[in-house]
């Protein structure tokens, strides 16, 4: 059931992500892999599709692909490059060298922030295409006067990650992309920026009633942000339900998301199913990763988001808090502090509300632990602790020094009690009311204390003393 769809209709989503790898050069030639340069300045006979050009695969691209595959728990296989044949001006040889029936990575999964697993069918290596700009007619393809082609991007290495259709809502899809992106960043494979095109996501959407098999799916393209992703999926699922409920039928097609109009449109591209005539590329030799190589990749694998979340959960956080800590990047600090005895609740609260993400790096674990302990032992009030923390971040000084300098030192209990007695004596009428059970009137005495100590008194301790003296 979904809030977006009427009745008991269910949406089924599988996402395909194309990720541009962070290599210095292209997949099959030594041209620079660089975004934003003057058009056609990063091209050579190979990537420009000149007669006689030949490909030689970039070893860094292969490394990235394997590492990304292992981070997604995939099996890394011997692989063969295959040509996908079709004509389009942005493909300089009119075939795209990709992987077909023998891809580098297969059968993996990733864990969403809420703990659910989503299957990954495959993650294979392929080359990117050039960029076509349509001129005239408002930039819309069908009214264009002509097109211009820049091949700087042609040949840039990509990993295409095909997720299984395990997602059931646009929100889950969003989580999937966020998680995928943080994994990609963690292994350094790409900067994966949707807005810049270094990560492109297409959504395969279908609908069904519970218990039915998969319905006809449509592929949605042109999703340039997470917001578009969510809007487009919801729109498309609803569109499909509307078609089916009004007795119409759907056919498998690619649709273009129009962000302005908030709808998907059928793409009037070439007719019916394209025949790509995949065959193994006879200009390239197979890749055969060996076990030692894969073991080395596994060994050197940095802590991935799912692991990090688990560590925070093990330190006493709920799933939500663990996800939050990890996404913010303060999880390592949290876990280390709690490991050294700091009270978890205070750790999580401060890290969530009082420590900006960038500041976490500057905080030493020892100092942070000391601060938490000062608070939990009563030497600092919550307000004071917050102030000290802010100054720790700004100045880098340790909490004890800061507390002393600001006069936040803990009051002796005698001192406090003496002040409480003074407060009581200052308003006997209020004291009678308090002793009689009027809790609100305690504010008089707390106010007196705060004035007398210039706000340094620990409110909780004062209230405890008042009750004690009143015999409540």
């Amino acid at each position, binding site marked *: 059931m979904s809030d977006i769809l009427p009745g008991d209709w269910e949406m089924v989503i599988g996402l395909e992500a194309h990720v541009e790898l962070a290599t*210095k*050069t292209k997949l099959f*030639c*030594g*041209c*620079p892999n660089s975004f934003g340069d*003057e*058009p*056609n*300045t*990063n*091209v*050579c*006979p190979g990537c*420009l599709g*000149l007669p006689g050009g030949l490909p*030689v*695969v*970039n*070893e*860094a*691209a*292969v490394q990235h692909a394997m590492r990304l595959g292992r981070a997604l728990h995939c099996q890394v296989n*011997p692989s063969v490059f295959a040509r996908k*044949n*079709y*004509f*389009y*001006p*942005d*493909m300089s040889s009119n075939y795209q060298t990709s992987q077909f029936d023998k891809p580098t990575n297969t059968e993996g999964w990733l864990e969403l922030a809420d703990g659910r697993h989503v299957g990954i069918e495959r993650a294979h290596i392929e080359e990117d295409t050039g960029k*076509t*700009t*349509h001129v005239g007619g408002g930039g819309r*393809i*069908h009214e*264009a*006067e*002509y*097109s*211009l*082609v*820049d*091949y700087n991007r042609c040949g840039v290495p990509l990993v295409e990650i095909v997720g299984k259709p395990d997602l059931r809502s646009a929100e889950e899809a969003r989580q999937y992309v966020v998680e995928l992106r943080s994994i990609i960043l963690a292994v350094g494979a790409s900067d994966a920026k949707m807005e810049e095109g270094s990560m492109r996501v297409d959504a395969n959407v279908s609908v069904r009633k519970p218990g039915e098999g998969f319905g006809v799916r449509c592929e949605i*393209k042109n999703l340039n942000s997470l917001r578009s992703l969510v809007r487009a999926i919801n729109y498309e699922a609803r569109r499909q339900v509307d078609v089916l409920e009004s007795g119409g039928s759907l056919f498998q097609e*690619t649709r*273009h998301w129009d962000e302005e109009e908030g709808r998907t449109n059928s*793409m*009037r*591209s*070439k007719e019916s199913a394209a*025949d790509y*005539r995949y065959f*193994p590329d*006879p200009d*390239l*030799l*197979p*890749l*055969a990763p060996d076990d030692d190589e894969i073991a080395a990749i596994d060994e050197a694998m940095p802590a991935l988001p799912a692991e990090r979340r688990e560590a925070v959960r093990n330190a006493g956080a709920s799933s939500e808090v663990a996800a939050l800590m990890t996404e913010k990047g303060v999880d390592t600090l949290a876990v280390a502090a709690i490991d050294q005895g700091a009270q978890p609740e205070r750790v999580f609260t401060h890290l969530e509300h009082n420590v900006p993400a960038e500041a976490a790096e500057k905080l030493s674990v020892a100092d942070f632990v000391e601060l938490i302990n000062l608070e939990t032992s009563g030497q600092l009030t919550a307000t004071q602790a917050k102030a000290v923390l802010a100054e720790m971040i700004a100045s880098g000084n340790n909490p004890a020094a800061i507390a002393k300098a600001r006069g936040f030192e803990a009051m002796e209990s005698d001192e406090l009690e003496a002040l409480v007695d003074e407060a009581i004596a200052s308003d006997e009428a209020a004291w009678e009311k308090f002793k009689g059970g009027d809790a609100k009137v305690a504010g008089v005495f707390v106010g007196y204390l705060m004035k007398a100590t210039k706000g340094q008194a620990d409110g909780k301790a004062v209230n405890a003393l008042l009750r004690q003296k009143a015999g409540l």
Partner: protein
Amino acid sequence: MSYSISREDVAKMAKLAELRLDDQELESFTAQLVQTLEFAEDLDQAIVDPLPITILPLEGVNVMRPDVVVQPLPREALMAAAANVEENQFRVPPALGES
């Protein structure tokens, strides 16, 4: 099963190969291809399962190059042979359909 090709198939292949054929050519090429495929009957009859495919008559795996920039040739040299250039890009009639 016998190797052959229909006129329809030839027309489809022409589309896939971005070739325009008039009726006469379609007729003529179909006849020639039917004949060629008849001659290939020996392969049609041959039993080659379960032999694996050969992609290249060459042993070897993992032939790769280091991720080091090779200075591209100057743009003017690479674009000199283009029929139509505008703003340092290759100009073509509207490219319908997205890849």
